[in-house]
Structure formats: structure tokens, C-alpha cells
């Protein structure tokens, strides 16, 4: 069953000026993100994947066109209004993780949480539960990011992103800087979140990561050139799933 639209773009354009020359990264792109979907954005390097992700999430403003979040045109928002939009509706997981180095693990999680909601014992309890759930034990909570492994950092980053129960979770190559074991752990968390109904938009160029989604959008030269839908991860045969996606990507010239 198709979910309702949570986010859609209308002739979205994004350009950058490079030495006085305008470079058009996203060109008149129309796209719809559905609630409850695990949407994976793929494409060749320079195809505009990350640019699209940041425009969708309100991290960056489009040059032209609109981004609708439900009934709200967030492309018209000021920078501060976008920040408020992000804190209320979005969670982010980055390839470079971007934990705050001068804060402990627990404070990193709460920094994201407290900006959106007032502190309460329940919030602290929730942070503790989530951290434990992803394997970050109590002994690690007072450690600083540079005392953790990459996988641990990314798990903390995910908890920081989801603690506010965002309407959409955005992820930009979340396993890009991790080894395969850590990457799998992280992807398992994403899968679990999706199973529980979390809407996710993830950028990746890794087919194993893309397999976790149920919808793959392929970008080329700043526009959507193909779309592929799959059942929820784990509900079908993995071989068939892999071959289906591979076939789609082959057709896209991947």
C-alpha cells in the first residue's frame, strides 16, 4: 500500500556559482517522498544526490522551485525558520558523523533532543534506552567522540538523529566511513527504524546499503531518471531482491 506524500518538490533547481560560471546541479526536479518509505537516492558522483538531500531537508535553500513539507512551502522559509523546521521534523545522519567533539556521548544525544523539547526525566530515560539498544553501554556515555570507534560514533549519531522522533530521517552515506561490520550494524538500525514506520531518505552509492530501502530513486545530471520499488527489507528473498536492484541499476548505466 502506497503511503501518503510527506514531502514533494516542484521544479526544484539548485545551482552554484563556480568562478563566475553557474553550475546547475539540480534541474527542474519533481519528486515525491512518501510517509513510511525508506527512500534511497543513488546516482553517479556529481549527479546531485547530496545536494538534493540537503534541499529536501531544509539544510539548504533551492535556487528555484519549491519544496513542500505537507502543506508548507519550506523553500520560502528564512534560515532561522528552516532551523526550527529541522528541529521539529528532521533527523540527520552524516557520513562524517559530525559529533560535537567537546561533548560527551550523552550530551551529544541530548544537545539534539533539548533543542526541540524540554528536558524531562523521560527524555533522559529515552536517551539511555536508545543508546543501550544500539549497543552503547553506560560506560561509554561519559566518553568523548575521539575516544570512540567510528561505528560507535555513527550509532551515537543515529540516536541523536532519532531521539526527537523526526517525521523524516535523512542520511547521507551513513556507512561511507565505516568498516563492513560496523556498516552492517548501522544498517540494521536503519532497517529496524523503517520497520517501525520511520520515513527515511538516504543517499548512497553502495548497493548493499540501497538494498535496505523499499524505493530507489536514480539521479543523473540533476534529475530523476529512474525509480525502482522493492518490498520491505527482510520480507522477500534476498537473492531476488539483489538481482532486481542490480538489474535496475544496470539499466540506469550504473
Amino acid at each position: 500500500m502506497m503511503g501518503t506524500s510527506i514531502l514533494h518538490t516542484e521544479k526544484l533547481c539548485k545551482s552554484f556559482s563556480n568562478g563566475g560560471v553557474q553550475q546547475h546541479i539540480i534541474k527542474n526536479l519533481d519528486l515525491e517522498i512518501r510517509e513510511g518509505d525508506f527512500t534511497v537516492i543513488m546516482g553517479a558522483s556529481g549527479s546531485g544526490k547530496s545536494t538534493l538531500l540537503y534541499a529536501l531537508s531544509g539544510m539548504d535553500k533551492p535556487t528555484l522551485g519549491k519544496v513542500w513539507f505537507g502543506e508548507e512551502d519550506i523553500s520560502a522559509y528564512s534560515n532561522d525558520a528552516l532551523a526550527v523546521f529541522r528541529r521539529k521534523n528532521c533527523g540527520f545522519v552524516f557520513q562524517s558523523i559530525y559529533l560535537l567533539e567537546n561533548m560527551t556521548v550523552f550530551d551529544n544525544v541530548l544537545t539534539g533532543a533539548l533543542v526541540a523539547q524540554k528536558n524531562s526525566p523521560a527524555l533522559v530515560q529515552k536517551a539511555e534506552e536508545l543508546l543501550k539498544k544500539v549497543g552503547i553501554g553506560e560506560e561509554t556515555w561519559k566518553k568523548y567522540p575521539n575516544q570512540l570507534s567510528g561505528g560507535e560514533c555513527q550509532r551515537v549519531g543515529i540516536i541523536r538523529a532519532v531521539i526527537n522522533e523526526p517525521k523524516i530521517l535523512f542520511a547521507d552515506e551513513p556507512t561511507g566511513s565505516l568498516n563492513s561490520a560496523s556498516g552492517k550494524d548501522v544498517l540494521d538500525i536503519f532497517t529496524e527504524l523503517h520497520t517501525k514506520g520511520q520515513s527515511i531518505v538516504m543517499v548512497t552509492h553502495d548497493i548493499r546499503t540501497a538494498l535496505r530501502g523499499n524505493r530507489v530513486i536514480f539521479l543523473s545530471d540533476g534529475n530523476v531518471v529512474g525509480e525502482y520499488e522493492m518490498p520491505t527489507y527482510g520480507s522477500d528473498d534476498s537473492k531476488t531482491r539483489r538481482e532486481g536492484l542490480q538489474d535496475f541499476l544496470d539499466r540506469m548505466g550504473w
Partner: protein
Amino acid sequence: MSAMEKILRLSWANIRKRKLETVSLLILVMLCMLLMGSSLAGVFGIRNIFPQMMEHTGSYENFILLSAKYYDDEFEHILRSYDSVEEVAHANMLYSYGTNYLDADGKEQAQYLGFITHDDAMKIEKAELETTLTEAELAAIEHPVWMPYAAQITLHYRCGDHYDVIYGSRKYAFTVAGFYDTMLYDTPESALKLIVSDQDYRTLQSVLDEYDILAYNDHQGQGGTQLMDDFTKACEDYSNNDIRSGLIGWYYDAFRLNTAFTLGFLLAIIIAMAAIIVLSVAFMIRFRIAADIKEQIVSIGVLEAIGYTSKEIVLSYMAEYLLIAAAGCIPGFLGCFALTPFLLSLGETMVGHYISHSVCVPALLLTVAGILLLVAGIAFLRAGAVRHYPPVRALRKGQGDHRFDKEYLPLRNTRSNVHLRLAMKGFFQNFRQSIGLTLCISVASAAVVFSFILFLFFGFNMNAIANNAGIEMSDLHIQLMPGEDAKAFAGELLAEPEVRKATPTTVEDMMLLLPDYNQMGFCMAFEDFSVTENIRPMEGRFPEHDNELMLTVTMSKMMKLRTGDTVTLEYLHVKRQYLITGLVTSTTNGGANIYLTEEAMKRLYPNYRPSTVEVYLEDGVDAEAYRRQLTQRYGRSLADAAQDKTESGSYEERIRAEAERQIAELMGTYGVSHVEYAIQVGDEMITGNSSSFRIKSILNLGSILQTQLGSLSTAITAATVAFSLIAAIVVMIILFILMESTVRKSRRELGIMKGMGYTSKELMLQLAFRIMPSALISVVIGTVIAVACTGFLTSYIGRIGINYPAVILVDTVILLFCFICSYFGARKIKKISVYELMTE
């Protein structure tokens, strides 16, 4: 490429990268150079002022003035007999306490005056006369007077101006012929020694006391009180006379110390201001380098990887800040050539002598060297941190850092505002930086609060000055004719609806001697001091009994007397001992006031009767209008009659006016107690007598105070505004640089937080709140320092009231100012693009 070239290239690249911060630092260094250089050059200038004065005046160093009625030629031989004394000279001078003269507005002003002939002046100094008048103009002046330069510098007299001196009811009209440089009685604050013609001297001789001056140099530097004491005893033994009541001493060392203190105080304030800036510069450089290393750590790794040594990188930092400091020192150095002469001209006004305006270049060069050395030292020490980052570690963004021993303010305990919590967290995490900031703002706050206290006291509130004057600042000060009953007169006035209070007293027309210290003071006698409104003891209490008195702070310091000590007073050869019950601040009469009750005065002089009435008018009553009303009721005062040149009215009125003028002269000048007159005009006999005069003079003290202290008030206001402005600029620059550097240093963290949904305004608020603990502590420390400085100043110039609510208000303004500067200083947060950060 040579090593030096590499270093300079790196430095130049850094300077170009952060133009705004560079310019801010340059301005700070320039201000520092300007203030420090000028004040240091001023200090050197002050050291030369006194030798310059001595050389220019050719004056003897010490003087003993002895009333001619006690003087004996043998005294000169006694003085010569001391081993340490050399080069004794003898001259004569007329001297008067509390003479009145008419100022430019025709108002009477009190002044100590001395008169000397040019021949006598040349016996004790060069007395080189200077004038802008031509020979013909000089010859045309009937009564020329040559004044000390101070009259030109501080009282603004010019050649050709009229200078009318009033003794009793008699006016002596002089014309300013020119000026000369002198040491003895050189300023209005001490006395003005005027050179007059032989003929005028002889005229004044009949009405003024003559003094013999013994001028001497003392090669052992012991020309002060000890020698004076020995000399006095020797003279008394020789003459069998008590000569102390007619003796005045003047010592070069005391003069130099007093004057140097005033000038030194001015310069100390400027040096303190410069010190604030030096601290700020040191702090800013230290902080900027730390921020730069953090921001540039990868670039530093790359440089090291391609062959730059850490020493070269450290030297490049040194070169960068030396270049900025040198660039700031140049305009500062040049500015000193304008500011130093200005400071020296202020010094001229204070000392009343012309001072060489030449700037002490070695002092400026010393300042430049000091600043460059400080900058190089701090840059070298702070940039030394680069050595801890070998290429691999630097390329890993200094991994290994951020090992925190203690977690400050964990967010799990946040109860209210997360932004405030994060701000406080930031404060503790940057504690060393916070200490530096606290130090800078503390000193700046101290400067602002201190100048504000002075401004409130001197510049804003004339009552405050009145309360420090040490005399009653009534609306009208009425001196009665001898024989008038002041108490009865006060009772008459009190019955009038315009009068709120009328207090009989004696103020300033009796001089009392403190024989043990060769000092004299004006008698301030009141029946009961509790009725006074402006005289308030700074220490101890009012005198109540007939064996008690109160001294001024100035006198107590001069004579090293304290509350509880006893002191002997002398009047007309009668001596009595008194207990000092308290000390009072006095900015009038050179601080030479003695306060005692009527009963205490009667113990010294049984015939004592008050001679003055202080009149306090009801609110809204105009003092001048009431003065006219008094004239209508009681007739003109003797002083008014003496100055009356009315040639209008009927023939009889003019005759009566002339008769009254003659009576005024007889009574005022010659001490005649009663005059009757009868003038026959045709068949008519016009008669009258002196009984019509009940009032000797009426002074409107408020107006005089306004005239005398108005310029002081303006000067203090201007100085405090300038002071606060410099402090504000410095604090603003510090906070702007600090915030810019913090934003640069924390660019990544701020970008991440923006990504999480923190708005730019929230992050700006966080950074502004982060400095508030420092600002709050600084303001408290600054206020304590300012109050302590005020206390220190109080011990020199008397009580300075502190308006604590106003001070708290200023503290609040400082805090707000710091907050606003920090908030807007952090505005570059707005330019941080989350997207750029994420895709960097």
C-alpha cells in the same frame, strides 16, 4: 626561497585572511602606543618641569616670610649661620590673606595676594618681565601690575586687562602690564605675587602688612620644617619675641611633591588606561593564535609535511603579530606628538607655569620597544603550541586533543533553558580564556565605574562639590559691620517668610595660629554644628565642647594629626589646647580651616562674637532678588557703597552717595568705628551718620561656587566621558575579536548545531551568554577596584560620596554593553552554511 621569505609569506597570508581582526588589533596597539607613549613622555616631562622652572625663574628654593613687625636684620645672619644654608637673599613684600578682586564679570573673588617691587623681586629670582604691550602703551599705564604666568594660563588675564583689588571699601585699580615667571606664590591656589611700581607699593604699604622675605638655598635638602623650627627658636631667643604668628614658610621640596602628585595622578590615570589596552592586546594575541592553530591545524600539518619546520611556523606567527604591532605603533608614535603636548598643556594649567612642549623621543622609542617585545614574547610563547603537532597528528586535526578530565554541567541535569546551559558549559570549557577576558573587562570596568563615580560627584552634582567645600554653602553670606549683633540680625531675618534658616557664625575673617606647626587656619565657628548643611565630618564627629575642634583632612595630613590628638591654638598671643574630634574635607582656603564652637572660640578669645550670618532661603526664592530686598530694608552694604559710582539722582542723593562712599572708605580701610557728617548746601544742611550701615558685605556663594567650580565640573565631565569612551571602545574591540575568533574556531560545532535545528539567533545568544559570567565577575571586581581607588583618592582630596544605586546602574549598563557587543560580534554565525560544512 629563503627561510625568512617563507616566514614572511606565511605571515602575510594570515594577515590578509582576517583583515577585520587585524585592523581591530592594529587599533588597539595604536591606542596603547598613543596613551602609553604620551603618558610616559609626560612622566619624563614632569621630571624636567621643576628643574626647568628653577632655571627659568632663577628663584631661590626656600623662603621664610616674617611679618616686618617681628623682623630683625640679625635673623638673616642666624639663617646664614646654618651649615646647610647657602646663598641667602633678603627682600620685602606686602602680603594679605583673603583679598578680594573683581573678576572679568565684575564679581568679587577672594584671593591671597602678595605685592612686591621689581627691584625686590629680582633679589630672590630673575623676575624677567614679559609683555605684549608697546613702550608707549606701557608708559600710559598709571598703575601697572605684572602677574605670575598662572594668571595668564589659568585665570586668562591678558596684557592691558584691568585688575581691581579691593581692601575693605577701597578699590585699587591696576592694569595688567605683563607677566613673569616665579616660584614663590605663583598660582591662584597658593597666592599670586604681583609686581607693582614703587609708588603703588608705597600706597599699599599703608593698608597691608609688610613681610620680610629671607630666600635661601639649602644644599643638604633640609630646607623644610626642621630647619624652620630651629631657625624660629633661634630668632625668638635672640629677639625675646614670639614670632611664630607672623611666620610663613615656603619650601621647594614640598611644592614639588604637591604639584608632582597632582600631575602624577593625571598621568597615572592615562597609564592605567594604557595598561588596560596592553592587557587586552596580550589577551587578544594569545587567543587569536590559539584559535588560528585550531582552525589551521591541517594546513599546519601540510606545511610541516612539505618541509616547513615548526620553528619557521612559530616565527611566522611572531612575524605576523610584529607586523601588526609595528603598523599600529607608527600612527600611535606620530599621535604622541599631538597628545603629549596636550597633556603637558594640561600640566601647565595645573602648575601655572609654561612647560616645554618638546616630546621625549627616547620615552616613545622605549614604549615602541616595550610593545614589540611584549607582542613578540606572547606570540612566541603561544605559537609554541605548534611544536606539539607533528605532521601526522596535525593532518588528523590534532587528534589526541579534547581529553577532558572533567565533564562540566552535563545536559542530563538541564532544568530550564538548554541555551543557557550550553553557554555555561562553554564558559567552563574555555576557562583559561575566560580568565583572560575577566582580567581585561575588570580593568576596563574599574576605569568606567571610577570615572563615573568622579563624574557623579564632581561633574554632575554641584551639591556634591558644595559638600566637599568645607564651608557652608548658604544662599547668602552676610558679613555684618563691627558691633552688629549677628544673633539678633539672624533672628530678624528668620522672621521673614523667604528665609528658611539664618545661622550666625564666623567664617574666614579670623585667622587662628597653630604655633607648634607654624600653620594658620581660618576660623569657622558655629554655635551648634548640627545646624550646618554642607560641613560634614569625614571622620569622627563635630566639636561640641569648648575644648574641642575639628580640622580639615589637608591640615591633618600636613601636620600628621589625627582624631583624638590634641593641638594648641593661638589668637592674639593667647594659647589654648583643644582635642581634635573629627576631620572634614575642604576644597576651599587651601584646606586651611579650623572648626570650633562659639564657646570654644570664647575660651581662646573671650570677646568673640559672631560676625556673619549664613542665610538659607526657601525653595523658589531668588537669591539676587532677596539680596536687593535686604538692601532696601537695611540699606546698602559697605562694600556696595564703596563701589557705587552712581552719578544719577538728585543733587542731594548724589551728595549722600558720595558721603556714604567716604564713610565706607574710612570704616573699611582705617577701622573707624563711627562717622557723623553734616554738609551745608546753600541754606540746607544734609546730615547723616554711619549707623545706617549694618551690613559690611553680602555674597551669593552659590553663584561664586558655580563660577569657580564650573570649569572643574566641565573638565571632569569631559575627562570621564573620554575615559569611558576609550574603555568602551577597548571592550568592544576585545569582544568583537573574541567572538569572531570563537566563531571561526567553533565553525564546525556551530554548523553541526545549526544542522540539528539551532537557529543563528540561538547560537549568537549562547555565545553572548558564554561571556556573561566573565562579564559579571569582571564588573564586580571592577566596582570593588573603583570603590577602593575612590577610597584612596578620598584620603588625599577628601570625602567622595559614592552613589551606590547609580553605580549598580552603570554595572548593569556595562553588562548589557558586553552582552550586546558579544551578540553582534558573533553575527558571523549567520554566514555559516550548514550545507557547505557538510559537503566540505
